[in-house]
């Protein structure tokens, strides 16, 4: 009997370790290493006049104190230079990236100014407290309106605070809008939020002075790229560096940024001091010195006909990129392209400006610009429906790209630099499913009944298309050991997505071995050196297919070797539960472990099994050399998957909310998801990804925001004040799946990681608007804001 692995909702093999306290997260490593703490700027914008370390020198256990001047004096000039601009773009005309320690000016609260190394973290913080930094406070730029006004500058040489300006156009949107029977304009606003993984960042570096080699553990989403960046920054040969992502306690985007200042500084100090050095970010540091996302102001103008067909769409938006642009302008590019969702926009024009502010730098957070784009588009769909008195679902349906339009070319450039062409999708069926799941057509009666009882309930709908699995590539290594066990390695990292399980499922299915015989290592450059990273819902698509392709190579080799041994045609062979046999004939086959032995012709036997492959064992064909031309020893292979372009997953969410007529409390009564990420590798894990995404979406729509005052001081930089939802705030999610396989990759999969979070702001704005009878344009929304909106609308009604 064949045991299926692919598509099975199996439990995760990483779990027994993680539930029993045997995970190995960054701070669980390196006991006894020196500890680092930082003095960080308390000002949003300030010139650093002097650093006085005198009082800190008396702290017992202090090892070293470093400022920017120490970096600048290093014989290697690279270490004091600005950190890399990871993703350059022609439209990013004024990129600015910080130096590892502030070079004369700090541009946000939390920017690292002084680094202290000590025997433990308590002592390092004692020393930090005793270091006196003299600042000249400069006027800060806080919020997008202030950045646009440009009364002050974040960077002296960027007078308008604009880092990037990009326009993309398909057709003549202004003309189409001018000629349209109906037009409307919306001003929209989405506030700042942040990834907030439960584990912050952390780096632990070990320098081996005898071997002149460096091993760095870091809580990252991109260990292979950290390795190359460190080689460049520290001027070391890349082969003397290994970077390992241990168990990582969540990422959600923030840990794709690299190298962090600390990722350069901790290894630099380890080499300099010839000691093991570790830094573990605390929660406050994570709030003020990692990265945030989401903040945008948007202006949408749309022209449409009597039936609600969009004829022209013109979107202008301003994106708050914070103080620096290490990750380029990926977030606003994603907003500007993914905004279109499942719709044909007619003519489309989008223009954005990415703005500097004296706040924490903005880089992708799960969704990465899509929630903002979907907010703009879905609010527009609702506004059109309101204007024409049409059903909101109907207006959406009328604008859908149809299954027969696939592949659908938007004639725009996507975030991977490649054409925005949807590979597959069935939006009408998704809509049918979500309407059925939530009871869309029956809701009017429910709303009316509730209103008659003095209750306010509303239903919302939001649709999205998510470009997933962007390139350039991922790779995999697969080897069948002489024990019959299979080892798989990818350079791509894991932060809780269950890659150890899903990649094992893929390899097991392709090789025909029990899934329990497969073990997977991710994110360890000792095992696999080339990878891009875990972001943009790409792991299953990219590494999943790389594992499949590699396993197929190994399978082909196994069949060839077995065919020689069994003197049959490889085409007549199959592998069932680790046994290579003539199809349908389990007797007389040979186990993969034996094939693995035979694949490596030996002079020296190291165990009983290995004797079969030695030169007098009689297993070698004397007419050929032991290793054929173009062959290699070992039942193993490395291969890569590199797609022509991204795959496009899609989904639709519907929610029913109730708002309290007195307190304006917002309660979620129902939350429904229809999700299409192509072929499912492990439905249990996909479902989990959706649940988690929805929870972050609920947080982002109703609770979470990063608040700065006018001086650039963060006001809620703690879990006490930044309101991540507890179990009491997150609804039970009802899900339905649709599987439209991607034609672009062998497995037919699309990404699933970010989906759950994408439509939330649009969805809750839609549902709350429906409950309240006025149009919500700003998210997130709190009960007090909803209450204030009610007062505004009451006042407006009164003046009519």
């Amino acid at each position, binding site marked *: 009997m064949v045991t299926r692995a692919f598509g099975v909702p199996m439990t995760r093999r990483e779990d027994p370790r993680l*539930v029993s306290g*045997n*995970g190995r997260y960054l701070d669980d490593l390196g006991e006894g290493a020196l500890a680092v703490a930082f003095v960080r700027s308390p000002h949003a914008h300030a010139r650093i006049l002097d650093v006085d370390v005198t009082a800190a020198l008396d702290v017992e256990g202090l090892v070293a104190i470093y400022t920017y001047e120490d970096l600048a004096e290093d014989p290697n000039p690279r270490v004091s230079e600005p950190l890399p601009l990871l993703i350059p773009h022609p439209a990013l005309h004024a990129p600015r990236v910080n130096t590892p320690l502030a070079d004369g000016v700090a541009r946000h609260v939390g920017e690292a100014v002084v680094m202290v190394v000590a025997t433990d973290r308590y002592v390092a913080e004692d020393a930090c407290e005793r270091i006196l930094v003299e600042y000249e406070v400069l006027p800060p730029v806080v919020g997008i309106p202030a950045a646009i006004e440009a009364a002050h500058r974040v960077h002296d040489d960027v007078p308008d605070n604009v880092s990037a300006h990009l326009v993309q156009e398909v057709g003549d949107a202004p003309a189409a809008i001018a000629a349209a029977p109906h037009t409307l304009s919306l001003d929209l606003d989405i506030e700042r939020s942040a990834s907030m993984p*439960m584990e912050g960042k952390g780096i632990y570096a070990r320098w081996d002075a005898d071997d002149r080699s460096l091993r760095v553990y870091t809580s990252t989403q991109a260990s292979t790229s950290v390795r190359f960046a460190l080689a460049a920054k520290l001027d070391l040969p890349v082969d003397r560096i290994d970077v390992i992502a241990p168990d990582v306690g969540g990422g*959600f985007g923030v840990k794709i940024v690299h190298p962090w200042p600390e990722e350069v500084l901790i290894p630099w100090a380890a080499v300099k001091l010839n000691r093991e050095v570790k830094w573990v970010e605390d929660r406050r540091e994570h709030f003020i010195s990692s990265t945030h996302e989401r903040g945008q102001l948007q202006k949408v103008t749309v022209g449409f006909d009597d039936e609600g067909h969009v004829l022209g769409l013109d979107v202008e938006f301003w994106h708050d990129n914070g103080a620096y642009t290490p990750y380029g302008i990926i977030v606003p590019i994603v907003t500007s392209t993914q905004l279109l969702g499942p719709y044909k926009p007619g003519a489309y024009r989008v223009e954005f400006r990415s703005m500097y502010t004296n706040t924490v730098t903005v880089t992708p957070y799960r969704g990465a610009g899509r929630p903002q784009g979907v907010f703009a588009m879905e609010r527009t769909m609702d506004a059109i429906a309101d204007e024409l008195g049409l059903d909101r679902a109907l207006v959406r349906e009328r604008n859908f790209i149809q299954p027969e339009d696939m592949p659908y070319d938007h004639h725009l450039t996507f975030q991977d630099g490649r054409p925005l062409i949807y590979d597959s999708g069935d939006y009408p069926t998704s809509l049918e499913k979500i309407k059925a799941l939530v009871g869309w057509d029956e809701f009017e009666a429910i709303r009316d009944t509730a209103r008659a009882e003095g209750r306010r309930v509303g239903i919302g709908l939001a649709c999205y298309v998510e470009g997933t699995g962007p390139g350039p590539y991922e790779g995999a290594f697969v080897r069948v050991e002489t024990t019959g066990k299979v080892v798989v390695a990818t350079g791509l990292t894991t932060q809780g997505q269950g890659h150890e399980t899903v990649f094992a499922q893929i390899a097991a299915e392709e090789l025909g071995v029990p899934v329990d015989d497969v073990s997977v290592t991710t994110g360890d450059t000792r095992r696999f050196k080339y990878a891009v990273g875990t972001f943009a819902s790409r792991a299953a698509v990219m590494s999943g297919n790389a594992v499949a392709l590699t396993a197929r190579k190994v399978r082909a080799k196994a069949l060839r070797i077995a065919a020689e041994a069994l003197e049959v045609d490889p085409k007549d062979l199959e592998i069932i539960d680790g046994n290579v046999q003539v199809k349908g004939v389990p007797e007389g086959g040979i186990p993969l472990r034996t094939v693995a032995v035979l694949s490596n012709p030996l002079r020296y036997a190291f165990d009983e099994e290995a004797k079969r492959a030695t030169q007098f064992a009689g297993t070698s064909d004397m007419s050929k050399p032991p290793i054929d031309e173009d062959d290699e020893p070992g039942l193993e292979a490395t291969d890569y998957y590199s797609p022509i372009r991204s795959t496009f997953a899609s989904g639709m969410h519907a929610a029913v909310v109730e708002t309290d007529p007195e307190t304006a409390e917002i309660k979620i009564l129902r939350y429904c998801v229809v999700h299409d990420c192509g072929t499912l590798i492990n439905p249990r894990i996909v479902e989990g990804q959706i649940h988690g995404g929805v929870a972050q979406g609920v947080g982002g729509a109703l609770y979470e925001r990063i608040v700065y005052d006018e001086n650039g001081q963060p006001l809620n930089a703690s*879990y006490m004040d930044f309101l*991540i939802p507890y179990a*009491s705030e997150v609804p039970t999610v009802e899900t339905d799946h649709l599987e439209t396989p991607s034609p672009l990759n062998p497995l037919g999969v699309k990404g699933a990681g970010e989906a759950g979070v994408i439509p939330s702001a649009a969805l809750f704005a839609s549902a709350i608007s429906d409950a309240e009878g006025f149009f919500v344009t700003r998210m997130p929304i709190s009960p007090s804001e909803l209450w204030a909106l009610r007062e505004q609308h009451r006042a407006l009604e009164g003046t009519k």
Partner: protein
Amino acid sequence: MTVTETTHEVTFTVNGVPRTVTVPARRLLADALRHDLGLTGTHLGCEHGVCGSCTVLVDGQPMRSCLLFAVSVDGAEITTVEGCRAPDGGLGPVQQAFVDCHGLQCGFCTPGFVTTITAYLRENQQPTEEEAREAIGGNLCRCTGYQNIVKSVLRAAEIQREQGAV
């Protein structure tokens, strides 16, 4: 003037084993467990008592080890996630339930849930779904959306009942 610290000897029982640590008065219980005793299953997510990742049982009660000084629990009996295993060394009922129900993703917050739920199920062996949700209401998870953690509470209760019936 050199700044030095006075240390104190503290003795408590951890997962049934008497342990002694010598620590400064300000050393957090979480740090003592993690760094002095090597029990790194207890995690620090916020260091201000909000997230619950560092929850351990002190004399049977769930407490935030990031808000306790090690010196304040002298003589106490402490249970960490490492001590929530079954007597035979296999996974304990709550741990098994998390595996069965996909109650974790990155796993960083999980130890705090496991200890919290272990204590809760001693008080209530047969929680309803609503009670299960309430029971985990003080712990943050950024990955799962809690739905499968609620299921894990119910499943853990079921496993305990099955084991009790044996």
